[in-house]
């Protein structure tokens, strides 16, 4: 832009004397002579790059695979008879309990996490994802338009919490029992501390009031819920209402249609101080969440963790494959180079 005005300046010759010379600066930048590093792909740099990358990736990959192998994980299907019952939505208020037995062949040492898994539940559906009101969950009563149609009942009573995500919250209760020497010991489970600290303490807040039920006065539970939000955990005041861990975790929508959510952690007390010992266990499940509607399945998963995440060995494999590929390429280039160098003696390049 600056440049193009100079033409019109030409019409004001009387300014010529006052104007300093229009000679451009002889600076490195303006003359495009800035000192620069010019990388060149010579055979040495190329080969060293490939081989170094290969070596690095291979070593990291092997470490990752080894560490992932130490993860113990067990996955259990949920009961089928209850699922049939839930197929019919008219039976929503009929309680259905089922128990699932399983056997741990090895000890699960360290922190053991208990997940519920859902298959084919598209929590990442666009209209589902946005059907929430973060402001409401912060305890404010503001615009909840995104929650539609789960905003208010026909009589105008607002839903608390609103939106489709909250409405479809996973509401099974799962208990784990350890069959230890024919006696059944309930495995102590921690229901708090499972969610992100920031979610629990910043992102989710109950409305301000002297007690919870009054805070939610004038609101109604979502249609699918069996009990209002302030009764989610009657035992623990700090795990009730919007700041209920199960609720918070559910509200963090999953990235994929098949996912797991952390349900409980094993409290490392007494028998379970080192984790879950090998043996027979039973899940006692109060089956509420219908999955047949969307041709889905439910699981319960017990898993340990290592520094590199869960049981998924993929990252390690990726590293190994990449490292192998890089090394191989390095060899190929070496081969070509050697071959051409021989030839070069014949051709005057």
């Amino acid at each position: 832009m600056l440049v193009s005005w100079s033409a019109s300046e030409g019409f004001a010759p009387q300014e010529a004397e006052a104007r300093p010379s229009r000679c451009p600066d002889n600076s490195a930048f303006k003359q495009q002579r800035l000192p620069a590093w010019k990388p060149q792909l010579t055979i040495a740099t190329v080969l060293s790059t490939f081989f170094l990358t290969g070596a690095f990736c291979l070593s990291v990959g092997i470490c990752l695979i080894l560490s992932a192998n130490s993860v113990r994980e067990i996955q259990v299907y949920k009961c089928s008879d209850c699922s049939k019952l839930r197929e019919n939505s008219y039976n929503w208020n009929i309680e259905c309990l089922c128990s699932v037995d399983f056997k741990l062949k090895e000890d699960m040492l360290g922190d053991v996490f208990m997940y519920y898994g859902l298959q084919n539940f598209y929590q990442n559906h666009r209209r589902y994802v946005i059907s929430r009101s973060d402001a409401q969950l912060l305890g404010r009563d503001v615009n909840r338009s995104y929650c539609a149609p789960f905003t208010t009942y026909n009589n105008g009573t607002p839903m608390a919490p609103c939106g489709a995500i909250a409405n479809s919250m996973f509401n099974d209760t799962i208990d784990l029992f350890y069959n230890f020497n024919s006696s059944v010991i309930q495995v102590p489970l921690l229901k708090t501390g499972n969610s992100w600290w920031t979610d629990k303490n910043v992102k989710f807040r109950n409305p301000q009031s002297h007690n919870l039920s009054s805070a939610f006065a004038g609101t109604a539970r979502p249609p699918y819920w069996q009990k209002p939000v302030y009764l989610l955990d009657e035992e623990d005041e700090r795990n009730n209402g919007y700041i209920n861990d199960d609720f918070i975790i559910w509200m963090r929508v999953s990235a994929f249609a098949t996912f797991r959510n952390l349900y409980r952690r094993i409290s490392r007390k007494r028998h379970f101080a080192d984790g879950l010992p090998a043996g027979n266990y039973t899940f006692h499940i109060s089956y509420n969440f219908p999955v047949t509607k969307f041709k889905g399945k439910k699981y319960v998963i017990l898993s340990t963790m290592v520094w590199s995440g869960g049981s998924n060995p993929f990252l390690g494999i990726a590293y190994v494959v990449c490292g192998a590929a890089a090394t191989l390429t390095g060899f190929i280039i070496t081969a070509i180079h050697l071959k051409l160098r021989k030839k070069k003696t014949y051709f005057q390049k």
Partner: protein
Amino acid sequence: MALSVDSALYRWQRLGAISLSQTVPESTPLLFSARDKSKVNFNKWRVVFPNNGRQQRDWDQASRFYSGNKIQTTKYTWFTFLPKNLFEQFHRLANLYFLFLLVVNWFPQIEVFHREITMLPLILVLLASLIKDAIENYRKYRFDKMINSSKTKVYDKKDRAYVEKCWKDVQVGDFVQLQCNETIPADILLLYSSDQNGICHLETANLDGETNLKQRRVVMGFSGQNTLFEPEFFQNTIICEMPNNDLNKFKGYMEKPNNERIGFNIENLLLRGCTIRNTEVAVGIVIYAGHETKAMLNNNGPRYKRSKIERRMNMDIFLCVGLLFAMCLVGAIGHGVWAGSFSEHPPYDVPDENGNFLSPVLAGFYLFLTMIILLQVLIPISLYVSIELVKLGQVFLIHNDIDLYDEEADLPIQCRALNITEDLGQIQYIFSDKTGTLTENKMVFRRCTVDGHEFSHQENAKRLETHKELDLDDADFAKLQHFTLPSMNIERPGTYNQRTMRPLRRCQSARAHFQGHTRNRSLGRRDSNRSQVAFSSTIEKDVTPDSRLLRRVREAALQTENLSPFIHMQTATSLTDFFLALAICNTVVVSTATEPRQRVTVPPPIKPSGITLEKIHQIFHRLKLASLSQSFSSSQSSSELGASFSAKNTGEHLAALDCCDEDNDCCDSSRGAGLQDKGSTDIGSASLDEVFKSVTHGSLPTDFCYEAESPDEAALVYAAQAYSFTLVSRTPEQVTVQLPQGTLLTFDILYTLGFDSVRKRMSVVVRHPLTKEVIVYTKGADSVIMDLLEDSGKADTYTERRRKRIKDRTQKHLDYYARDGLRTLCIAKKVLNEDDFQKWANFRREAEAAIDNREDLLMETAQHLETKLTLLGATGIEDRLQDGVPDTIAALREAGIQIWVLTGDKQETAVNIAYSCKLLNQRDTVFTINTENKETCESLLNLTLEEVRKNYEVEKPRRKFFDFIPASLSASEVPSPEFGLVIDGRTLSVIFQGGLEEKFLELTRHCRSVLCCRSTPLQKSMVVKLVRRQLKVMTLSIGDGANDVSMIQAADVGIGISGQEGMQAVMASDFAVSRFKHLKKLLLVHGHWCYTRLAKMVIYFFYKNVSYVNLLFWYQFFCGFSGNTMIDYWQMIFFNLFFTSMPPLVFGILDRDVSAETLLGLPELYKNGQNSEIYKLSTFIITMLDAFYQSLICFFVPYLMYKDSDIDVFSFGNPINTISLLTILLHQALEMKTWTLFHWITMIGSVVIYFIFSLIYNAACVVCNPPTSPYWIMEKQLSEPTFYLLCLITPVIALLPRFFIFALRGTFGTSLILKAQQLDKLSKEQQDLEIQKLRSRKQTTSDAPVASPASNDDLDQNISHLCLSPFLHPAAATVSHRDTESQGLSTSEVNPLKKWTPEEGYYFFNRWAEEEYTATESSAGPFTGHCPLVPSRVTSPGQDSGKPTKYKGEKFNHGSHRRSVSAVTL
């Protein structure tokens, strides 16, 4: 415009008819009668009534429909700006697309982003363009206003006087009074001129770039008046053509009240924009005003230029649209199928607000639109903005290049178009103007030959070389004087010495701005603070006389004075005649330098010098006697010959001649001889000096300015002046010349036979005031004059022999001049005896009086007179090439650029310049096509084409052969001649009208260069358009004058040369440079860089957008095609806006793939851009595939990693976003060839900014982005080791294949660019060496060895090469020119030497040899063998046909004696 005028006229016609029916019964005698009225077709004619109150009503009516003189080039007014600009902006597809997205996003079912977010980019883009257009428009507005408010004098009917008015208030029918040096405000019919003969001089530089003066005449019947013209008595009605853009045609008639008609034509029309010169006052009536003037109609509006890359890009954007459509379709169908697969609605399928569920089909349709919004980035809108920014940066850098800065004019390059920088790197055709572009448009007298004696004017050449230093230091100048003329240094005639000291102004081609009123100012400026520029004009005016010649002139003067008996009379008379001819034989107008300039018609009174008129009379009488007894001087002149031409052999002869001239030592001998001569004439030297003194101090009180029709003439007059033959005044009847003796000699001009292109000569018939002889002085093209010389067939008498020798020698010199690119003119003389003259004069009078074919008769009489001439000598005038032109042209040609010259100049000049700037090679076969007949033209084209093809067929197999045999062998082949084509304007119009364009183009494609002479501005632009459209190539036009404007606008890239001829070309251009040589760096370096940078950037943007958007697309497969994103909107928008935008911008502005030095050293690198190698369909597709691959990796590695985990949507998206950021930046890093500090900063900065922004945004934003917020995602991710592991491995996998390819190419590739890049690493010396090697390899393999750039100034150097070359012994030369067969032999002998570096010596020799061959075998042209129709005799077309326009049959002439030119002339 034209349409509206037509309709306006139609309305007026009806109105006029009505009013006429009323007015006629009233019997207004001033109006034409109803009978006449019916004859005038108002759709074809314009009727102008004078605005003097006489025909008030008619004038009122008429002027309503004719456009006023106000011009408006602006697009908008204050009120229309916003709506009109927005309307125009929405013509752009991108903006419409934005708008569409905006609208779509407004529907709640589809809404993906916030409405405000979608609006943001559109508003930004619109606003930016709005501001830009506003500024541009305002500038135009100011310019218009300036022109519109220029003042001129218009007759006011109330005051009955001329009053000053603004240009915009001038109306059709107004009487305008113009002063000298004023710019003409409208197209005006000339009715009065202060000149006695009714002539008005016009400078049309603003219109057609020609700096010479044109004469316009007062309309017939008005010229006789001696009194001032009285507008109030003007009662005529003017009927003329409708406004049109033909600058050379205009006709109409004036109807007097008594129905008498007076015709007029273009000769009587003053065109808007021209400047009045040499005429004190001129009055005329306005015919066309404002936009209807011819100048404005010739100014086609600027075309919106879109660069080639952008055009290509738009195509690829359509591909992207297709891709987008496909992806959206996949999404829509997928969603439909997915939604349809459920028997009942799952809990995650959310109904709309009313609780209704969508049917799968409708949901699919909505999703289609949703996907368009979601994937909108696929259409890289950000690219448009980025490109604008990058181009701005590129323009900034180009503008600041110190190499493109002209110190003299204090002008850097001006980049006026901001959006076509990269086109500079893709030019395939250059169309260049000649005058002022290739040349400096300064004619300089360089050499002359008199009587067969060459005078090389070495001092003059040196002066030209060193004029810059001279300007700085006059002491140097004095030193030079001493150095060159030791013998007579003190009494030097002060003619030039004096003049250099004075501030000088350029008279002959005074520059003017478009507006008359700025002219004076600009002149003043030139004088006061632009002395450097002012000095350049002295180059033309000051001619340093050749010492030998000057001495001889003095001797001659002395001899005639002293009447010494032992002088060489012959030489003396020849010299005198020669310079008299130079001074007289022209149409130069003398004016004083004072302002306002007055024409000098009366010789100024001279102080009486020591010489009386009687004495002079005596002298001339003696001279006459001497010329009759020529035999007397024979021995003397041959001894003179010995001094300058020592060798007998031609080759050595020339060499010796120039060796001597170059080297002072060598000249000593001749000087010694000269001194001896001087000694013999010493007696008279005192009185001679006295004479000179008296001349200097006495009789040259004023500084004369010579205003000539062509600059050559002026140069000749100045040359004569340098030898003290000063042209003092000129009237149509008389011409006065001051002789060295100080006497004024007034010749009666009996006839002036003007120059025309058919005769190629002009003559003046004068009566000598003293001897009363009737003398014809003729000057003209050598080819013509040589044939008209007195036949010296028998060569028995001594005189005859001498004449023949002179002729031969002169011819030799002429060849030599032409080779050097000088414009040659022969000067000849003829003395008529009274009877012959009277006879001829009668013929002439008859011819002049003739009504039918008057022109032909005049021509015949002229030809009749100009025979049996005596050759006086010849001159070599240099239209000085600008610095570095041949070098630039050679480099550009090596870069694969075709160069055409389109000029309005005449053919000979153009060809000469083409030779001297190495556009044509002496070896080239040049076809000249001049015809006015379609059939002839077609057959000529066919013939030529056939000829050319034949040559190429021969060549083809040989070329194949070339590749396999060693270079030393291949070089032994005679290099095939290249072809040049010369075509003139008439032929061009035949080609355009006759639909012969394709043939023409086909022919030109085989030609090395094409010259179009005598072409009008419109033709120039038509040629450019033709080539551009038909061949689909990138074109560049370069020119300096207003006549180049349309050509500049027609080309893809228009370049104006600033500072030469006003501002018109600059205003119309895209880039304005001050010298032609700047083109080299502009194209080869900046063009290459800009293209590479931008092409890579565009490709990168496509890649970036596709690879990023595809991430979102892949996610659709996992979210039920619901249109969900795993990345937060803001992070997504910022990704393109901030995180990845800077590196490509910096790359686009600063990256240098190859250094400037290497680019200049290896012009071939330019072909990279020419062939669009970086950005073409294949690279685009490969990049797209790579983008797909990379996006797959960037998505699926994290996917497989996080599969079946408790990862949430944004926590999944965050690493993906990070990974793709890294991948995209690393991809850019791979592309970058230079890493300056800026690169590092932006690269690292982008990553840092990304993390900082994400961290802050994710920490601060709890609910700020409803309904979802990525709260604490980044923090959480950063605390997990998997995130880092993922971010490490994924970019590596994604970029591995690309890096692999790069590595292969980098280590084993053989492309020139890579080689050049490697060169940059080497040290300076090695670099030069390698470049030499590469070049020489190229030259041996390419068919046309490029002439090593040799400036035409160092002719003498060439010669010395010639002397030194071992293979050029005289024997070889004689053999070669005697025997045509041996030519090949000698070349093959020579060739081993030429293998690596084509020696100039060889080159020169070869040229010379060939010329000898053609000279001796002039009858056997290349055509004669194939075309039986061809007459083998060399003829000038004018000579054998009095009617040059009539179809006569095909003739293939060797238009010149010296070159292998095949002229196809009709």
